Each structure stands twice: as C-alpha cells, then as structure tokens.
C-alpha cells in the first residue's frame, strides 16, 4: 500500500472510532461539549502519532530478541511513560500548549485508541513510514469522529425532545451508529 492510501484509509474507511470501535469511553464521556471534544481530539492526534513512532522500533527490537509475546506489557509502559514525559516537557517548554491540553493528556493513557494503533500496526505488518502515517491518520480520524459527534449532541441537547430513558448515553450511541453507517459509505475508497 502506498503511503497516501494508508493515510486515507486510516482516516475514512478504517476510521479508528467508527469502524474499529476504539476509544469509546472518552468519546462518549467528553463529547458533551464541542470545545472539550476538540481539546481531547488534538491531544489524541499528538499522543497517537508519537507513541506509534516510538513503539515501532521497540517492537522490532522485541522481535529480534524473540520476546514478541511481551509486546502488550512493553507498549503500555511506553505509552504511560511517553504521556508522563510529554506532560512534563510541555509544562516546562510550551506552557500555552500544555494549558490547551489541560486535563486531557493524563487521561489518554487509558484511551484504547492509543494502544489499539500500536497493536494494529503489528497485525497489519506495516513498515516504519506506513506506521508513522497510519498513526497520524488514525489520530485525525478520531478527532473527526469526536468533533462530529459532539456537534450533533450539543445541537440535540438544545433543540430536540428526546425520550427520558434515551437522553444522554443512549442517544449518543444511536447517533454514533448513524455516523458509523455514513462512514461505511467510504469503504473501498483506498483498498
């Protein structure tokens, strides 16, 4: 696959949130306001890209030493360490960016999308350049999904008359389902 195909497919037809169903907990919890959704989305793009790039050589190293089955443990530690390091680094050198990400950065360690990307590049057998592009594209795809969902939810909160039992999470899932159907339309765009 060419790099451009990997990029398009990771954003649209294999969207990490709507087709792979990853990172659902923050997607549902944070999409009640568009501003927060955007903050979380940017933080995910940032962290997913960096951890994807860091995890790739580590995985190759594990493979070379024949300890491939430890990859889960090593990936999650890498992710936790990277998030911790980024937080300290941003606080010191780029305080404005740190304020923009705010509380979202520490939450990302338990976002399944981040670990998911690291596991998918293993199962898809991507090379380094493809991994970097795939990680970045997946982050953008997640940002797209959460911003779309939060826009719809905010609008619905104000204008529509939702049944009492469906309000909140229930309607968020139905909306996500409809969004996911729309994204099914992109299938085969880059295959």
């Amino acid at each position: 696959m060419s790099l451009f195909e990997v990029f398009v497919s990771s954003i649209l037809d294999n969207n990490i949130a709507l087709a792979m169903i990853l990172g659902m907990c923050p997607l549902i919890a944070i999409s009640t306001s568009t501003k927060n959704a955007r903050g979380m989305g940017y933080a995910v793009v940032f962290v997913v890209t960096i951890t994807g790039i860091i995890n790739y050589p580590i995985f190759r190293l594990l493979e070379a030493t024949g300890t491939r089955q430890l990859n889960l443990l090593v990936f999650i530690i890498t992710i936790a360490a990277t998030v911790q390091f980024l937080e300290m680094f941003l606080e010191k050198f780029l305080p404005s960016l740190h304020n923009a990400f705010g509380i979202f950065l520490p939450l990302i360690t338990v976002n399944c999308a981040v670990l998911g990307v690291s596991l998918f590049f293993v199962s898809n057998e991507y090379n380094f350049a493809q991994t970097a592009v795939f990680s970045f594209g997946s982050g953008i795809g997640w940002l797209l999904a959460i911003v779309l969902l939060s826009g719809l939810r905010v609008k619905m909160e104000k204008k529509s008359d939702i049944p009492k039992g469906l309000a909140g999470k229930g309607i968020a899932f139905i909306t996500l389902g409809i969004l996911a159907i729309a994204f099914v339309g992109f299938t085969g765009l880059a295959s």
Partner: protein
Amino acid sequence: MNPRRLMYTKWFNISRDGMSRSNPILIAALGLCSALAVTNRVDNSIAMGLAVTFVIVMSSLITSLIRNIIPQRVRMVTYMVIISSFVIAVDAFLEAFVPNIHDALGPYVGLIITNCIVMGRSEAFASKNPMRFTFFDGLSNGLGYSWVLIAIGAVREILAFGTILDYRVMPTGFENWVVMAIAPGGFFVLGLLIWVLRDMTKSYEEDLA
C-alpha cells in the same frame, strides 16, 4: 441463613451493584470498545466476557493483596503492570486452546488492558478493601459485563446471520441484516438496550447527575 437477611449483607450488595445497579457497561458506560467490537457473534461475546472476568478477578485480588505496600504516586503504573501480566496470560491461553476465537478477537484481547472497568475496579474497590470482598466485587462486575456482552451478541447474531452459536433459528427465507455484523449494529443495539433498561429500572440520567 434467612433469605431476607441475606439481602442486607455486604456480599449481596456488592454482587447486586456489579450485576445491575451500577453495571459497568449500561450505567457507568465503561469498557465499551470490546463490548461493541467483538459482539457480532455469541461465542466471541462469551470468550470476551470470560477473559475480562478472569482479568478483573485476578488483578483485583493481587492489587488488594499488596494494597498497603504500593506507593501512592506509582499506583497507576503498578495496576497496569499487574493487569497486563494477566492479559498476556489470557492471550497465550486463547492462542493455545481456542485458536479460531483468538483470531476472531484479534488485537481486542490485548485491549483488555485499557478496558476502563479493570482499572476502575482496581482503583475504586481493590485498593481499599480486603481480598474476600474484592473477589466478589471482581466476579460480579465481570459477570455483569459478560451478560450485557452476551445479550448484545445474541441480538446481533440472530439478525446478522440468523443463528445462535451456529444453530439456525431464523426461517430459511430470512434476509440477513448486514448492518448488524459491522460496527453500526453494535451502536444501535447498545443504545436501545440502555433505553430499555433505563425505562425498566426507572434510573434516568438526569436523576443521577
């Protein structure tokens, strides 16, 4: 013991909290990724439910055992190392004994690590309670998670393939709903399930907030 008295014991309350009153998926909305991604067939749901139950029970037991010697600042990382050790064990077990289910679940077995339920139970319950209660809490949360997965899996498998556990239940002329086998089907079924349960138990979101 008198069955009425049983209802006031701590054991009973812990179990009821996990299974229904604060069900991890339906009420707290945790651990959704695996609940939606693997539930298009009942056998996958059962495997995922058992795997998660095992990981929750074992990791909370270990967390509870060493809760007094974990330094406060590094507790998250400690939980993660404990959890991922058990997930690796589950992954290896599935690969060795049921390879076809292992292939169907794919990377989602590894993603049990970031399943917020496991982490949530370690942080909220196991780090404060003795092992005997922790065992029940882990078990009831795991079973509460499993029954929701199996319910979603049953609805999706009937509509998407016309079968339950590969046993044909729909008449032969039944047109399969392809949408139920892919991601959107999971969202719809879970959304509707939440609606039904909220109306049945009268626990609406606005009352909780």
